[in-house]
């Protein structure tokens, strides 16, 4: 049986020196060394303060984050549990006020190097979007940036995803671009820093690629994490509604479509979102509830003829279940009889 060395330690003189001398030895270091470090920190703070415009490193397009108290030095990226709490109504305002980037990371708590990379990537994305830079140039500018750090890979993938998103938006029918966009968007969400926005794009990319199961997974995360209830959230809601129709999760689909008008502020601008529905009809030719969604949206803007045609297409499909058939028949009779 072993004997604890500490149990009998008191009997042994500690290396021949009195405890008083040893305490003095330790205290000497404990007082001098922290003072040395504090002195160095104070000196570099006084002598080499960070210029405010340097916070962004690449042109200072954004003000430095507010620094109201010492607490900001302690602020780590927010854990997912905190983000989930913020999703509730109480937290929304705070998230929005501070600005969200990454997985709940507030701009004020972002690593300066990460912030610089994000700034560079965003500025390049804007310039490409405005047609003022070619994608190749933008990509090269980002690659040449000398900012190192662990966030570089994430920002690089995110930038690639954004570039392809723009290309995809301009060429929705180009399958090669869609495939590339889908690959890039999924690569980004596989990284731990992925934000609600990345989940949204990955959801859209996979939905248009015919992977509705994966799309629902990403869109669910996007809906859960989306920190506001504006048009951005409404777009996620819109694609989730269609994804539910493809599944088909008929009760959820009808529940969501009943709230569509309230949730989607641009419901009356049907020309903005109808191409997406029609595109998905081509990707999922045997999904009756997509036709039902098209009919419902037409009925909102009193295009009864188009609504009726869409409902009839849905009813003609064999995959429509009983609940779907019943509800669409009800909508059809409302069209015939006028609003009840």
């Amino acid at each position, binding site marked *: 049986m*072993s*004997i*604890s*060395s*500490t149990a*009998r*330690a*008191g009997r*042994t*003189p*500690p*290396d*021949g*020196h009195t*405890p008083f*001398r*040893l*305490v*003095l*030895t*330790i*205290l*000497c*270091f*404990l007082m*001098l*060394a*922290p003072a*040395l*470090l504090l002195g*160095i*920190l104070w000196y*570099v*703070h006084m002598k*080499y*303060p*960070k*210029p405010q415009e*340097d916070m962004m*490193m690449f042109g200072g397009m954004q003000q430095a984050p507010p*620094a109201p108290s010492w607490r*900001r*030095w*302690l602020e*780590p*990226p927010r*854990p997912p549990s905190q983000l989930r709490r913020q999703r509730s109504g109480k937290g929304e305002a705070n998230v929005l006020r501070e600005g969200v980037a990454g*997985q709940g990371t507030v701009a004020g708590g972002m*690593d*300066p*190097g990460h912030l610089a990379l994000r700034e560079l990537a965003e500025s390049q994305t804007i310039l490409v979007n405005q047609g003022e830079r070619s994608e190749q140039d933008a990509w090269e500018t980002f690659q040449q*940036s*000398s*900012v*190192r*750090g*662990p966030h570089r890979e994430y920002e690089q993938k995110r930038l690639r995803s954004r570039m392809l998103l723009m290309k995809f938006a301009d060429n929705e029918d180009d399958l090669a671009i869609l495939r590339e966009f889908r690959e890039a968007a999924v690569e980004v969400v596989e*990284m*731990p*820093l992925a934000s609600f926005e990345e989940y949204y794009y990955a959801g859209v990319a996979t939905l248009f690629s015919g992977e509705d199961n994966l799309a629902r997974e990403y869109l669910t995360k996007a809906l859960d994490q989306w920190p506001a209830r504006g048009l951005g959230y409404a777009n996620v809601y819109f694609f989730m509604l269609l994804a539910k129709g493809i599944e088909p999760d008929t009760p959820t689909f009808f529940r969501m479509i009943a709230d569509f008008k309230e949730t989607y502020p641009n419901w009356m601008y049907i020309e903005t979102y109808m191409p997406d529905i029609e595109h998905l009809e081509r990707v999922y030719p045997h999904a009756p509830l997509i036709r039902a969604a098209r009919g419902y949206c037409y009925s909102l803007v009193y295009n009864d003829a188009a609504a009726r045609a869409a409902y009839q297409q849905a009813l003609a499909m064999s995959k429509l279940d009983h609940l779907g058939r019943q509800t669409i028949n009800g909508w059809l009779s409302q069209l015939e009889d006028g609003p009840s």
Partner: protein
Amino acid sequence: MSFLLLCSWSSIVIFVWMVKRKYHWTAPPYVFLLIFALAGVNSTFPAMVTNNFLGRETIFYAFSPELIESFFGFFIGAGLGEELFKLVGGLMVLLLLTLFRIDIGPAGRYLGFVVVGLAFATAENLFAYYWLEFWTMVHRGLLAVPFHAGMGMVHGYFVNMAWKRGSPVPIFIGYLASAVLHTYYDVATILSPNVDPRLILYTFVATLMLWGLWQWYRIAERVEMAADESTEQ
């Protein structure tokens, strides 16, 4: 749970291996080692504050594109800062033990500082690097955690020397040595951009560990044996 394991497996392996290799006849001072571990965890917070302060309030941001700024960012933040807080954490425990006239012997002190380093590395994985990818965390387990253990060995070696001489000078030397080594570990890949970083870092950490384990091999297991050695010298 699996994430906790991912952050701490390397610390557990190093600790268990060191204990198994040394304590054949006596039990390690587990209670005091636990206090050392708490000190190690606590030392991560001031280290985080210092690193963030440097990055946000001064030009010495560790990941700055400017080499000089980056170098001093690592030297002041990671080198002088992190090593100071680990050393101070361990010394505070030793101070308390000395005030209560408890001597855990050279092996206990050495292992105590290693435990501070391991706890610091684990806490750093948990609090500062939890967002890294799986394989990066595995690499941290093979590099950063043994490295912090090695820094603990440097601290333990010099604290034992200070104990033997009754002078604070070796602690200062140990502090500066660990600060320089830590800075080298962080900037080695920047200073040698054409060499595979894995080659540099794994070689460096392996050398450090070999030195530390050699020192560990030389230390007597029991307090009495160490005292006898000290008296003979």
